[in-house]
């Protein structure tokens, strides 16, 4: 039974863990710990939400705890003043999943966390502040910074792509 549950959700959850962990090895550590929690506390699942959502939440919380234990989420309370680059004209259709994962994993841990929680998981900054024990403003500024870094990566890759096309 446990094996069936694992096989059903392991791929999705592995992708979740990879977004939060800097390496595959650490992602598997997180996933192992999180699945043990899932099987241990499966009796507490109240069926008030989809099971996948409940498992995903455990994965995210375990990842946060894992990185917090490594002091990777230590944040400076300096507000990072980053200009909001409002270039919404790009598309990610040309990028593979591995490329997108590489971009996210290249972010600093605190930026990666905030970006994952806000952009992908859908938490708002108040909730993220409570989860990471930071202020809402800090969450916003760190997210802006992460967003700017990713936009920069995407812009550079697009420029490189155009130059390669023109030159060819």
């Amino acid at each position: 039974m446990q094996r069936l549950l694992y096989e059903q959700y392991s791929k999705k959850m592995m992708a979740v863990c990879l977004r939060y962990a800097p390496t595959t090895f650490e992602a598997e550590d997180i996933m192992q710990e999180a699945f043990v929690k899932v099987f241990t506390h499966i009796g507490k699942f109240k069926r008030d939400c989809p099971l996948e959502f409940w498992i995903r939440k455990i994965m995210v919380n375990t990842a946060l705890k894992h990185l917090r234990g490594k002091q990777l989420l230590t944040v400076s309370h300096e507000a990072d003043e980053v200009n909001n680059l409002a270039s919404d004209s790009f598309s990610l259709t040309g990028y593979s999943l591995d490329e997108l994962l590489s971009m996210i994993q290249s972010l600093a841990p605190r930026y990666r966390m905030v970006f994952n929680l806000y952009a992908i998981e859908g938490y708002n900054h108040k909730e993220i502040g409570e989860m990471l024990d930071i202020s809402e403003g800090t969450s916003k500024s760190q997210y802006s910074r992460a967003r700017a870094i990713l936009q920069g990566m995407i812009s550079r890759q697009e420029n490189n792509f155009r130059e390669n096309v023109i030159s060819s």
Partner: protein
Amino acid sequence: MSSAANDKRGKLEEEFRNRMYDAESSPSQHLWSRIDHSLTVQESGEYKKRMVFYRQLAAACVALLILAGGAGAYYFGGAPATQQPLATVSPAPAATVAPASSDKTAQQAEATAMAAAKGATVAEPAAETPVGASRQPIAHSGSALANALLTVPQREKSAIPAAETGIMPVPLDEAGSGTLAVSSLRIAAARATSARPGAAESPLRLYKSISRTLAMMAGSPGAAALGSGTPGRQTMAGSTPVPGAPDDFKTQNAQAMARARQQEEEQKALALARSEAVAAAAVPKKSEKEEGREKGRWSLGMAYAPSYFEQNIGIPNQMVSASSRQSFSLADPSTTAMSSLYIDQAREEYEENTDPGFSYGVEVKAGFRLGKKLKLLTGLGFLQNTARSKSSYTIQQFWGNTFSGTYSNTNGPSNIFVPSISPEFATDSLVVAKTPEYKVNYRYRNLTVPVGLQYEGNMGKDWFWYGGAGVAVNILLQTTVLASASDVKDVKYDVNENSPFRKLQWSGNVSAGVGKRLANSVSVTLGPQVRHYFSTLLADPEGTQASQGKPYTIGLNMALNYDLGGAKKSR
């Protein structure tokens, strides 16, 4: 997961979410093996925790059994071999019966009676025979009635004839009428107050008996094994080497012990690591609470419970209606009528003026937490239950003999309660005297062994509520009927004496209330408590005419608890 405030997501967020939220990536093949192994280790750790719990539960049960066994051994081993029925009255002259009380006046009166009866022969053919059953004539000295009356206090003695002063012999047989049956008389003899040598030493004997029993139990091999937490291991570790044993055996033994210790330490370290991992797996705040609960499974407590005790013993409606044929009948019918009137008045006075008295209980309890909120409690306690009444009458019982035409008194004067609880009618005559009002206290001292369950729930940060129920076995140590008047005889039954009261009683206890945690391990509780006994106070309720109910107490329970093992505040 998202919220209403999440409304400023741009193209980048949407693109990443669409691509990444449901993305999949295959984990390595051996990841499931690692998870499966972790689960196995965790389950074995939980099994070990459960084993520890069951061991502690078994230890609690063993402790309770030892306690109950000790109490039972004392109770059944310390009781006198010959149980003399209450109604069995030795027909010896009054002077030969040593009074239970140390009232010197009474003793002197008895001695005087003895002197007055000098030369008189006393036949004792029916010794140890229930008088009410055999009805054998009892020979007394010719002046026995006068001698008996000598035992009445001087004030009363000088008041004879009774009709003038309120003291009157009550005939139990109105020979002239002959219409009333002998069996209608059921008046207590209260002979159980006869003093026994060494009765004053009974508390000392009690403690010695308990100590001896516990020492015997502790000295038995089984008890020694139970006393050690891990008998096998301790026996091995503590065993002395056999002289002449081969050295290689010693070496192997030492190596095996070292390996066992090492494995045990490794298992402990592993279990500790696992428990930390599991605790961290859940929400952190919650795991701390559970950790706190795990630490404080044992607790000790002391309780003080002041209460009011309702003994629920009434007075029979018809105590005196006729007399036996063997007794005297007074010639004066008005005397009989006045006696009946006094008896009726004494009964009404008892019914109206008997109230619950201040009682208390002191208990020392050990608690064992069965679950997060459920606790098993047991211990040892002392109960003193008291009821009180007022009386304006004294009653004295006499033996009568038709042949000799004499009376002898049984005990000193008492209030109406004492004769009313006797299971067998054993007197032929009563002397009822009206006296100034005096107070009577009925005191019952018990050793109690309670066992119960208590459920606790949080009310706030440091406050909690509790509700508990249980049973207790109560061993009657002493019963005393104390009168404030000096001329009314006190009645006292010690644990080893024959008594009309039940010596072993079960009760049910219910309590509820609130508690406050004063420190990490210390808490106090306060709440009402009801203790209801499962049987009447009297040992033979069927053979007693007195109306009876099951006694109960209502009071407060104040307890101080100390959690062992450094329990945290949260429960």
